[in-house]
């Protein structure tokens, strides 16, 4: 046992520094209030302070930070999308992620693994070729590979998938990575706190005060806070928060479930996704297989888990990896995914002056954490959304200018 740890255990006072201050009483007013202490909200707070010098900011979190979808995703970071708008946006996020451990001075376990999207049908191969061409055009390293290259990267994979869905090829995406998701939230929280941002956990927003079409303040479980700028970054709670200000969105909530196996020695280097078999899988740095599948088929506002999900997912995992039949699933959980009809987020200004939305993150939010924080901070600071997120604006629906990102959803949602 290291001497330092032994000394720490024997001490009466434990002075290990906190990541951020444990604040209980908010001030009477702030320059901006961020609802939601997940990765997105905390990143927005961090960049508001760092890039724009706006430090009089409160982050209000209903539970504990990173306890929502930030801590419930399968931690994959990639940018191999289908539309140029999507590829550009997620590529900017990957680039920030690559240097983020250093910037936040915290090891995020960011691990570049390479990402294979397996194609089992000719039509899937066509989409892979399409995505590869769009990616190359924008300057992202993605290309189509054949079964031989897949076998070389993952010799344990049964290429015939038990004879049910033989693999014809894949879209290979070199920058595909995994990261420790809770560390991302904690790193941004610490960074924001050091710059003066105040974070309040166990603080629920119960109403938003709008006067003459402008935000005037928020009602919270810790009292009223006056502010002219409110960012909602609350994922599955978006419809409830939007109802407080009467802003209409197309968002509907479906649970998205995931699970992990018991830890194993490292054997799976890459990230594998199969649209046809509704599986995405990677091996964490602790050795667990982290697995996810498609959305639950109907609207539910809860994080309950179901046996249907693990049964379906594990049967498809066994088609791909028959040798896993003795491996146990040790945990399963769900998050509330805020789905949009075009599988792209909703970011930027709303019809209510001073109410900004960072939502519609469905099943694709974790990978966008840094860039959404950065672009939303700019939107709040300048009251104008940057060009990079123009095609994700809420008004695209009334303009009939949807983004059409469905072809790049990780599995067939």
């Amino acid at each position, binding site marked *: 046992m290291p001497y330092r740890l032994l000394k720490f255990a024997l001490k009466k006072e434990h002075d290990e520094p906190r990541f951020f201050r444990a604040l209980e009483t908010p001030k009477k007013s702030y320059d901006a209030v961020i609802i939601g202490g997940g990765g997105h909200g905390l990143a927005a707070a961090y960049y508001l302070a760092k890039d724009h010098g706006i430090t009089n900011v409160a982050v209000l979190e209903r539970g504990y930070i990173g306890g929502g979808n930030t801590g419930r995703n399968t931690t994959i970071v990639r940018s191999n999308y289908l539309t140029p708008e999507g590829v550009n946006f997620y590529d900017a996020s990957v680039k920030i992620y690559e240097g983020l451990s250093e910037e936040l001075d915290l090891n995020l376990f960011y691990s570049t693994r390479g990402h294979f999207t397996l194609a089992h049908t000719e039509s899937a191969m066509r989409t892979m070729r399409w995505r590869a061409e769009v990616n190359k055009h924008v300057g992202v390293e993605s290309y189509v590979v054949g079964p031989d290259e897949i076998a070389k990267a993952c010799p344990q994979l049964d290429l015939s998938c038990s004879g049910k869905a033989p693999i014809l090829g894949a879209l290979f995406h070199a920058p595909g990575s995994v990261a420790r998701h809770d560390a991302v939230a904690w790193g941004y929280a610490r960074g924001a706190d050091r710059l003066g941002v105040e974070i309040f956990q166990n603080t629920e927003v119960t109403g938003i005060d709008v006067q003459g079409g402008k935000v005037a303040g928020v009602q919270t479980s810790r009292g009223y806070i006056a502010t002219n700028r409110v960012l909602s970054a609350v994922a599955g709670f978006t419809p409830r928060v939007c109802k407080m200000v009467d802003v209409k969105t197309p968002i*509907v909530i479906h649970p998205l479930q995931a699970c992990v196996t018991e830890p194993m020695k490292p054997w799976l280097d890459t990230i594998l996704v199969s649209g046809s078999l509704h599986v995405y899988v990677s091996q964490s740095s602790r050795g667990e297989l982290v697995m996810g599948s498609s959305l639950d088929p109907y609207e539910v506002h809860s994080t309950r888990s179901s046996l249907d999900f693990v049964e379906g997912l594990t049967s498809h995992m066994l088609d791909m990896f028959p040798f896993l039949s003795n491996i146990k699933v040790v945990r399963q959980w769900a998050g509330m995914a805020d789905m949009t009809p075009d599988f792209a987020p909703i970011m930027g200004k709303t019809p209510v002056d001073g109410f900004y939305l960072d939502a519609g993150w469905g099943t694709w939010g974790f990978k966008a954490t840094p860039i959404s924080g950065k672009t939303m901070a700019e939107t709040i600071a300048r009251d104008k959304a940057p060009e990079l997120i123009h095609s994700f604006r809420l008004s695209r629906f009334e303009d009939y200018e949807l983004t059409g990102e469905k072809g790049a959803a990780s599995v067939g949602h």
Partner: protein
Amino acid sequence: MKLINCPINGVRPVSEFVFGGELREMPDPDQCSDADWATYVHHRNGAPGLKKEWWYHAPSGTWFIAERNTMTEEIVRTYLFGQEEEK
């Protein structure tokens, strides 16, 4: 296993059913404004609560209405469209 009471076929497992979204009133396309029509096409009442929803019993091809609490997943009652009062 979750069960749903199909108005025609009785209680069946949820795996036999397909979710069809919330029952919504269509505005008259000749009368309403472009903004109202866009709202009808795209926007949804995403907030939780007791909702009237379309459900489909796939083996028998039956569309019907279920009143369901989207927070608790409790189905209060089911009936064929337009036969709400008879129940």
